[in-house]
């Protein structure tokens, strides 16, 4: 009951944010983005136990796919193959903008899922460190490759279409975009983690050999899990490109050094393999990071590095893991007397 009230109040507050704190809308949109990224990472990193450093790969792909669709769907004579293909800011009418955005987002999600399936068949048979290192290479390689393709602006980046006049505030629109995505992802994952599918992911995490010996089709489950993460990441990427307004291949799209690492840290901070851990971790991490950037300017990266060390050393199982160790009864761990 209290939990439901708290969630309800939180939802109402979140909906009212663009009216209450108009100056912080962009920042809070990024908080929701962080929540989405953390939730998506936890599917395979936490629940399935496959530490991936390459989730940012799908984020970047989604971003580019959507941006290209938005630029070219109602083409205004942009020379797509010129060196300046990325520099042109396309001006679209209101309906053109939202139609192309919708198509772009859907296509971004679909392509990310397809890529995840194909790629998954190749690399999901690797385990542990090998999988982690392989995915690390994936994100870095993608950034370098994107830097060499003129069609998407190459190394000098790509500008997303301008937000149309008269359609309200761009920041508020994308705030709600990420808010809806975060809530939708949370509902989806809550459902999945309570199903047999969720249990299979946990089984793969705890002992994949045993899961195979018990006849579970582990490869298929792993591929589906990765596809779900890719689906969410693709939609998140598509929105982020438009929120930032400019896509740099390495600093915005395949941004392994920031979002790529942060989404892992937030999950470790909040608690791997829990539903709410990534949410809590993302919010706390983002708030801390913003404070560092504001009050410790110049030393912000040092402070962030220290924070990371503190997280790993003192919260190895995360906030939710720590809570669970202290109050296992709250999580249903109990011995039944007299039965």
């Amino acid at each position, binding site marked *: 009951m209290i939990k439901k009230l708290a969630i309800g109040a939180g939802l109402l507050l979140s909906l009212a944010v663009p009216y209450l704190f108009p100056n912080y809308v962009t920042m809070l949109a990024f908080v929701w983005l962080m929540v989405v990224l953390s939730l998506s990472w936890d599917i395979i990193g936490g629940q399935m136990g496959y530490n991936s450093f390459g989730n940012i790969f799908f984020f970047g792909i989604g971003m580019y796919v959507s941006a290209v669709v938005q630029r070219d769907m109602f083409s205004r004579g942009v020379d797509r193959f010129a060196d300046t293909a990325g520099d042109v800011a396309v001006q679209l009418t209101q309906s053109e903008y939202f139609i192309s955005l919708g198509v772009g987002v859907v296509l971004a999600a679909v392509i990310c899922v397809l890529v995840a399936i194909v790629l998954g068949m190749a690399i999901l048979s690797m385990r542990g460190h090998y999988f982690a290192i392989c995915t690390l290479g994936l994100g870095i390689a993608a950034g370098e490759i994107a830097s060499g393709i003129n069609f998407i602006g190459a190394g000098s980046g790509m500008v997303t279409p301008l937000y149309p006049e008269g359609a309200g505030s761009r920041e508020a629109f994308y705030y709600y975009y990420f808010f809806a995505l975060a809530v939708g992802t949370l509902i989806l994952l809550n459902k999945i983690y309570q*199903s047999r599918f969720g249990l299979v992911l946990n089984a793969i995490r705890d002992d994949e050999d045993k899961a*195979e010996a018990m*006849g579970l089709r582990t490869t298929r489950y792993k591929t589906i899990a990765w596809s779900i993460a890719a689906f969410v990441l693709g939609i998140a990427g598509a929105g982020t490109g438009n929120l930032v307004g400019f896509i740099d291949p390495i600093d915005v799209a395949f941004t392994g050094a920031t979002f790529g690492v942060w989404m892992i840290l937030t999950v470790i901070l909040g608690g791997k*393999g829990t539903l709410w851990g990534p949410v809590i971790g993302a919010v706390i991490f983002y708030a801390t990071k913003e404070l560092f950037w504001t009050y410790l300017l110049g030393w912000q990266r040092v402070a962030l590095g220290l924070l990371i060390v503190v997280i790993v050393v003192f919260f190895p199982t995360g906030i939710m893991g720590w809570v669970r160790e202290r109050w296992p009864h709250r999580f249903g761990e109990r011995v039944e007397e007299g039965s």
Partner: protein
Amino acid sequence: MAMLDVNNVSKSFGGIRANQDITLNVPEGSIIGLIGPNGSGKTTLFNSIVGYHPIDEGSIRFEGQEISKMRVPEIARLGLLRTFQQTRIYGDMSCMDNMRISSPDEGGVGMRDLFSSISPEIDEHAAELLEFVGLHSKRWLLAGNLSFGQQKLLEFAMALMRKPRLLLLDEPTAGINPTLINGLIDRLRLANTEFGITLFVIEHNMRVIMNLAEHIYCLAHGKMLADGPPEMIQNDQRVVDAYLGAS
């Protein structure tokens, strides 16, 4: 025709010939034992049967079907299951979840599983089997927090949950409190008679295996040394020598 037919199976790891020309069969409904000193190739043979690694020569048939080229999960889905010598359970999940996930998936996999929750029948069956192995009161604890012996019992219950036709048990009594061993023997027998599961058991505890099995195979140095009913094996001079190190 026997339920499990192993014919002239050989397996080497580099220069070590772990199994040489092994032939044995497990008739349906029986309890068959496999003994032998440490390093005689018992677990290697189990691994070969369940498809953990390819065999070099020979054939393995389960209910008439050649399985030596099949992969582990496929063989498991045919109803041939094994438990591990080093007990394997899902440590960070509750005992109930361990059981739930061991229920057969009825061929359905994927998108439908994504949203369907666990059915009450499965929960009921899981609770019954946990009762059967004496872990009912601990069913909401994390499996990793159980003692080693309890984990062995849980693993056994998980195997039963999967409703196998043939169950390969790798040292089911190792690490179990001697006073509990009798109870375990009873349960193994019950699994055989009540649930109709054929058992093929590796065991070092002679008292247990002589009590349990109706036919025993003895391996030594990767070769089949002797086989026969328990009384015969017990008095076989070659078996005694193999165990005591005389040669």
